[in-house]
């Protein structure tokens, strides 16, 4: 754009060099290499600015219109560019000149190109003056809607909503009727496109016409013979429901929801389960308490596991929408079966929301009914189920209190901390600081302290790493003194381990904890340790010493740096190993 602006100012002068790039760009619109063509198409704005509005309208747009027979990538870029061209052709007065190429793009075979063209048509339509709307756009819509190939009819469905607000009443009526025809088209894909655009259309139609024009279409689409059309009606229940009053919702929307939840095709039932809470909003609180409860129970007992999974993930949200007594009396009994469902996906989905139920059901219900389910899920064979429970434990502790939680759940947590699957152990570690803050320092020392030490010596690196990182969070929770007295001695002892990997853990711990522990501790304990380890036979240990020293340098007084640290680093600069020398020199620069 920069050199294009430059080119324009040079318009009256001899500006050969400045026009060279644009000239090339124009020619490259028809280059054999698709990447070159693509690049030119993406710079169409530049070309148009150089040519000016009049030439863009009279030459560039017709040229692009002839180029519709190209690769799909190029056509997609073209469709996108044209949507932004209103200003470049001279503003709203001339926007209609963009319609011809866009109409052609809206009928090509490749779906993504058509969709983009429809989007661009909608953008351009917003700028059209009303006489151009009638003169050019409405005929375009009619042509698309009555096209021979179903591709153009699909595209037509997407432009009705933007047209209707901008035309007269008689035209509105014509267009509504045309849309109605599309909703009864022979080709299922057209009916689907119509169904997908129905809610948008309903939003721009006058309210009194909804019942006469939109509702009949909605009803017939929701009973379509193709399940791929029926399942879109579920979403329309929500979109159209918002526009109707409660009486109409009960007459029209509710029966559609009811039949969808009992549809023969599991895919339709799945859509109902997926959007269940939004559907409840659409039908209102009264119906939710009555009809939707029954529908929900049916869905969590569905024969198809996918439906049960979708419904399970909505349990907590749904229960929040109905009164507590109803939830406990009607939903809870059935929900228990989900914890023992035969499909692991159902149990997993249920596990991720069951904790949310604690807030809904209240303390006593949670203790009596939910706690046994937590325990059951915590012992599930399938790791994902267990993980989903662990990650949400804090929502439960808010409800039933930490004491009860620790008594009942802690044994299970400890068992998980020693689980064979390292990802499960990892999840527990991540959770420890939170648990620690809620349970207090004595509890931690007593029950979890030793466990933590075993993690620092775990065979999996990620576990050791997570344990080391979490040491910092623990120190923040329990304080520096605690860290110094309880953790530090044990951690530092690792340096005597025969396997160098575990000795490294000690070094990492030093790096992590130093910022928190204060210069005294660093000088007394940590530097002494590093001093011992810098002579370790394994080079990895030695160069990690250098790195740790680098972390420590800014944390202690200069005298310590010069007297203690610098000599250590200088010695290591003469180390036979190249990596050690490198890191020693790196850290030395900080002195």
């Amino acid at each position, binding site marked *: 754009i920069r050199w294009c602006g430059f080119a324009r100012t040079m318009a009256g002068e001899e*500006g050969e060099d400045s026009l060279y790039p644009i000239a090339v760009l124009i*020619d490259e619109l*028809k280059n054999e290499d698709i990447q070159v063509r693509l690049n030119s198409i993406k710079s169409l704005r530049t070309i148009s600015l*150089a040519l000016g509005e009049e030439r863009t309208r009279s030459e560039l747009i017709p040229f692009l219109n002839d180029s519709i027979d190209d690769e799909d990538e190029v056509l997609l870029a073209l469709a996108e560019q044209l949507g932004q061209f209103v200003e470049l052709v001279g503003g709203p007065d001339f926007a209609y000149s963009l319609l011809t190429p866009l109409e052609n793009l809206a009928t090509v075979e490749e779906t993504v190109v058509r969709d983009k063209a429809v989007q661009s048509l909608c953008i351009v339509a917003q700028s059209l003056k009303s006489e151009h709307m009638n003169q050019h756009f409405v005929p375009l819509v009619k042509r698309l809607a009555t096209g021979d190939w179903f591709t153009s009819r699909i595209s037509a469905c997407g432009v009705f909503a933007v047209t209707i607000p901008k035309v007269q009443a008689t035209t509105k009526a014509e267009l509504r009727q045309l849309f109605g025809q599309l909703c009864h088209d022979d080709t299922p*894909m057209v009916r689907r496109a119509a169904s997908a655009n129905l809610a948008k259309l309903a939003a721009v139609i006058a309210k009194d016409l909804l019942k006469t024009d939109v509702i009949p279409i909605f009803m017939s689409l929701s009973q379509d013979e193709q399940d791929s059309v029926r399942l879109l009606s579920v979403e329309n229940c929500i979109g159209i429901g918002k526009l109707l009053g409660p009486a109409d919702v009960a007459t029209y929307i509710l029966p559609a929801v009811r039949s969808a939840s009992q549809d023969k095709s599991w895919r339709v039932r799945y859509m109902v389960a997926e959007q269940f809470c939004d559907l409840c909003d659409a039908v209102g609180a009264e119906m939710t308490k009555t009809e939707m409860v029954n529908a929900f129970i049916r869905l969590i007992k569905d024969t*198809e596991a996918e439906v049960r999974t979708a419904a399970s993930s909505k349990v907590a949200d749904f229960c929040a929408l109905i009164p507590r007594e109803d939830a406990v009396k009607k939903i809870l009994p059935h929900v228990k079966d989900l914890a023992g469902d035969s499909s692991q996906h159902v149990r997993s989905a249920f596990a991720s929301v069951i904790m949310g139920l604690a807030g809904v059901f209240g303390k006593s219900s949670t203790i009596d009914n939910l706690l046994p389910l937590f325990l059951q899920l915590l012992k599930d064979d399938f790791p994902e189920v267990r993980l989903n429970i662990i990650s949400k434990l804090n929502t439960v502790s808010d409800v039933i209190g930490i004491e009860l939680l620790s008594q009942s759940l802690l044994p299970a947590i400890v068992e998980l901390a020693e689980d064979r699957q390292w990802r499960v152990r990892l999840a527990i570690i991540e959770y420890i600081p939170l648990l620690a803050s809620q349970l207090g320092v004595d509890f931690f020392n007593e029950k979890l302290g030793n466990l933590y030490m075993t993690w620092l010596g775990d065979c999996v690196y990620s576990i050791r790493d997570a344990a080391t990182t979490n040491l910092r969070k623990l120190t923040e929770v329990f304080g520096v003194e605690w860290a110094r007295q309880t953790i530090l001695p044990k951690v530092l002892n690792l340096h005597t381990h025969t396997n160098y990997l575990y000795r490294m853990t000690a070094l990492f711990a030093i790096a992590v904890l130093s910022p928190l522990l204060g210069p005294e501790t660093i000088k007394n304990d940590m530097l002494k340790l590093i001093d011992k380890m810098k002579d370790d036979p394994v080079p990895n240990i030695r160069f990690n010493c250098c790195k740790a020293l680098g972390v420590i340098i800014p944390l202690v007084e200069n005298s310590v740096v010069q007297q203690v640290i610098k000599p250590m680093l200088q010695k290591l600069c003469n180390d036979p190993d190249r990596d050690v020398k490198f890191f020693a020199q790196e850290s030395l620069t900080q002195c």
Partner: protein
Amino acid sequence: IDEKVNRIEWLNKHYKSLLVLTTNDKTVKLWKIFNKEEPKLYNFNMDGKPAPESINKLKVPKHKKGQKVLSHKVLKVYPKGHEHHINSLSMSMDNEHFLSADDLRVNIWNVERSDDVFCIVDIPAGNLEDLSEVITSGKFHPIDPNLFAFSSSKGIIKLCDLRLNSSSEKNCTNFEILEDPSKKNFFSEIINSVSDIVFSKNGRYIFSRDYLCTKIWDIRKNKAPVNSLRVTNYLEKRLCDLYESENIFDKFELCGSPDSNFIFTGSYNDNFHIIDRHGNCNCTLEATFNNKKNQMIGTYNYYADKKASAPGNVNFNHKILQGTWHPTGSTLAVANYNCLFLFNGVTSQMPYTK
């Protein structure tokens, strides 16, 4: 992976160009066949000349209509759906989905999406040596988009409804003849293996082909076929030899006529048969160069006659495995080794005796 095309399947003509699916052993591809215009362009800016001097001299290239040339391109590739050799491709009537089947799995794809596939039937592989049943053919119902059928090497045809469950292994209607175990011999399973199935065009019947005969099943009745019509029954006594020569494993395909009344299938001796669904007669024709063009050919054998016709000498190397019937007309295309024969059916009543 062998460089051969196992199956092709046309999409219904809803587009300006022709679309066809093809598959080799592992990958399905969607091709477009269309008339491409070779445009003639002129009025370029930089055709060996220096750059234009001023903005007003910038030129926009122009089009001149060129010739239309028939060309093709690959629109989509559907990789990684199958671990074993793909044996079937079938388009659904909704023109959006197709199924591909290999020995152990049936996948359903959406034509638009090459990155996502739905595995509707998955026979657990377990130990490949212990495999007792493989899938031999899979087809969508021609009218109902929710139904599809697949056949297995055990002679069972399974009809599945997509609406019931997300996985169809367990929820399907089995079409099989429960054999008397005492009649079973070593070869029973091999000759009962269904080599191909098709739905009749009106959607009411499934025609299946196993080694010796073709069976007509009504989809409403799964306990027994409506008819079981012999094609090469004369081979029943020679199964041993056929096993040795491995001809017993030949897979014959079949194809239904547009009016659902006739079935085409191939056999040995360059012969192919047009069998009438009602079980009255079998018209045997030969696909060789001996026939003169426009000559009326074919010998009729009536099933009511108890004697089975047996040709004297059976040439097992001259077999016709594949052929296809025109979707609406009465033309047959029959493949014999590397030749394609086209036969025109004269629409007269096939005479039959009661």
